């Protein structure tokens, strides 16, 4: 299984085979062994997902019938989309999907704006308490959400919200069971601010100066100078805020009771209450996985790059 680590891939285009002037210490069998190992691992990571997709197309008796052969991973036999129609007949799956798309999109878009603006102020403007604010924001990174989720349920239940009752503005209390309770708490994100901040630090400050000389205000610099240069950071932050937003589970489980406000992951609990067959369960799982998987396969470089940049930069 040992492989030659003497060549780390770099951002530069891979060197051609001529690079192998030095005697490489990798005999042919080791090379083949490395490939075999990698392929076995592909099977290890992919088989449950393939099994899920394939099972979603089969009736239950056939899922269990196919288990002891390779057929478990092949769409053969009585293949149909019946499980999917069962899903839409038993739970409001369409509604869940729309909810999740809406909630994730709003969280990501508003978050991009709020967090980049904060990072811009931290990175490029001089104001008192700047370093304190920055240090405090970074210190919050080590506190997992689970530690304060429960007090937060109690807290959002006390928060006011301005509503209109027949044209009359009215304060009502309690955010439970709403869209806002699933979006607003997750807009400001210390991690996103930190990523934007470190990216903005790498953009030369002379550009601001030049724009200032031309009479641009700070908001103008943010909009027309810094943000247009920050494509990679915007992509990274979008991915890193979209994934948890789409996968929201613990929070909506606690604060959302109404069926028509629920996101996709909480919809799962329905099936457990209904004790439905496994086929529809696999169909629903496939349904809520496919959107993210397609996004991932289209933008896999950005996805993996965003995770990588979250780790080592600092």
């Amino acid at each position, binding site marked *: 299984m040992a492989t030659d680590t003497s060549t780390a891939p770099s951002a530069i285009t891979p060197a051609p085979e001529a690079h192998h002037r030095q005697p490489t210490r990798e005999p042919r069998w080791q090379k083949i062994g490395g490939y075999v190992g990698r392929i076995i691992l592909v099977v290890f990571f992919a088989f449950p997902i393939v099994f899920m997709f394939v099972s979603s197309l089969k009736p239950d008796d056939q899922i269990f019938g196919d288990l002891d052969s390779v057929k478990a991973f092949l769409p053969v036999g009585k293949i149909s989309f019946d499980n999917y129609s069962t899903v839409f007949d038993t739970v409001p799956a369409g509604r869940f999907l729309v909810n999740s798309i809406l909630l994730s999109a709003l969280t990501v878009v508003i978050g991009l704006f709020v967090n980049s603006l904060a990072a811009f*102020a931290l990175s490029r403007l*001089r104001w008192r308490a700047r370093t304190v604010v920055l240090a405090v924001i970074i210190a919050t990174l080590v506190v997992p959400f689970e530690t304060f*989720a429960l007090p937060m349920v*109690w807290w959002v239940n006390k928060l006011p919200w301005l509503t209109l009752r027949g044209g009359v503005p009215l304060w009502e209390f309690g955010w439970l069971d709403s869209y806002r309770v699933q979006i*607003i708490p997750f807009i400001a994100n210390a991690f996103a601010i930190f990523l934007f901040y470190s990216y903005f630090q790498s953009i030369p400050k002379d550009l601001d100066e030049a724009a200032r000389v031309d009479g641009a205000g700070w908001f103008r610099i943010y909009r027309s100078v810094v943000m247009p240069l920050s494509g990679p950071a915007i992509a990274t932050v979008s991915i890193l805020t979209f994934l948890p937003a789409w996968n929201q589970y*613990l929070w909506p489980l606690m604060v959302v009771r109404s069926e028509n406000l629920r996101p996709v992951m909480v919809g799962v609990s329905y099936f457990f209450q209904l004790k439905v067959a496994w086929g529809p369960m696999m169909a629903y799982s496939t349904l809520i996985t496919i959107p993210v998987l397609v996004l*991932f396969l289209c933008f896999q470089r950005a996805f993996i790059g965003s995770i990588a940049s979250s780790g080592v930069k600092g």
Partner: protein
Amino acid sequence: MSISTAAAAAEPAIEARTRRPRRRLKAAERHEARIGALMVTPAVILLLLFFFIPVILCFILAFTNARLIAPEPAHFTGLDNFTRLFSDPVFWASLRNTFYFGLVVVPVQSAFALLLALLINVKTRGVNFFRTMYFIPVVTSIVVVSILWRFMYQPDGLVNSLLQTVTFNVVQGTDWLNNTKTAMPAIMFMSIWQAVGFHMVIWLSGLQTIPEERYEAADLDGATTWQKFRYVTWPGLRATRTFILVTITIAALSLFAQINVMTAGGPLNSTTTMVYQAVRTGYQQQQTAYASAISLIFFILVLTVSLVQRYLTRDKD
């Protein structure tokens, strides 16, 4: 993790600025400060409302008798919640299980992730493909993964039939999630399968920060593969190592979704965890205060563990 240095680096600039003699620039500076504060305000208000206040509330509510929906306002009850907690066998079970999970998953997952990273950190064809495939479980939601494996772990499920096929009926398997001995290991296995790709990617980016020349020098000295790993790769991964340890530990101690979907803490409390117990008492039984007490202990635990890890893996220079 030179996160703190970013803040520190900004300091001299500010000091230099404030030491300047006051001059005409004052109006412009005041304007700049105002705009800066204005830009940071939305994020700061939101973080106050949805991070700092809940964290502080956790410390306060733990010493009260607050409930989610209560006829009368909460009042202080001192250490009542904690005395009740420490005499609750379920609490000790969840503490034990949380540690058990962490102690297995942290080393195994970080080592396995490093192995994967080394395996695909080579200039051969198809590396991109392998990396993508190993990463697929990471982008699949843990809730979906939990449902899927719950299905596979059934007595007549895929895991048992695979085991029988591979071992020619020697290994029979068991009812994985309903057996007190196997339920937690089964969840560990699945959790590692799901998350290991994430840390593989972080190891990879760490590996790519190691200068090529060091490997070339090692080659010239005739170092073996193992020696290269021991004297070049391993020391070069110091910063990455700390980050990986801390993140895996926090994630492992926060175990919740898998339990909620797969076992609901059973069988016989063999898989209940701190977060699961906090959610069950806080949300299902609406005992906010009691759940806050559990959260508070969890908070102290996470903080202690990550500080200890930072200290142990600190730069020895």
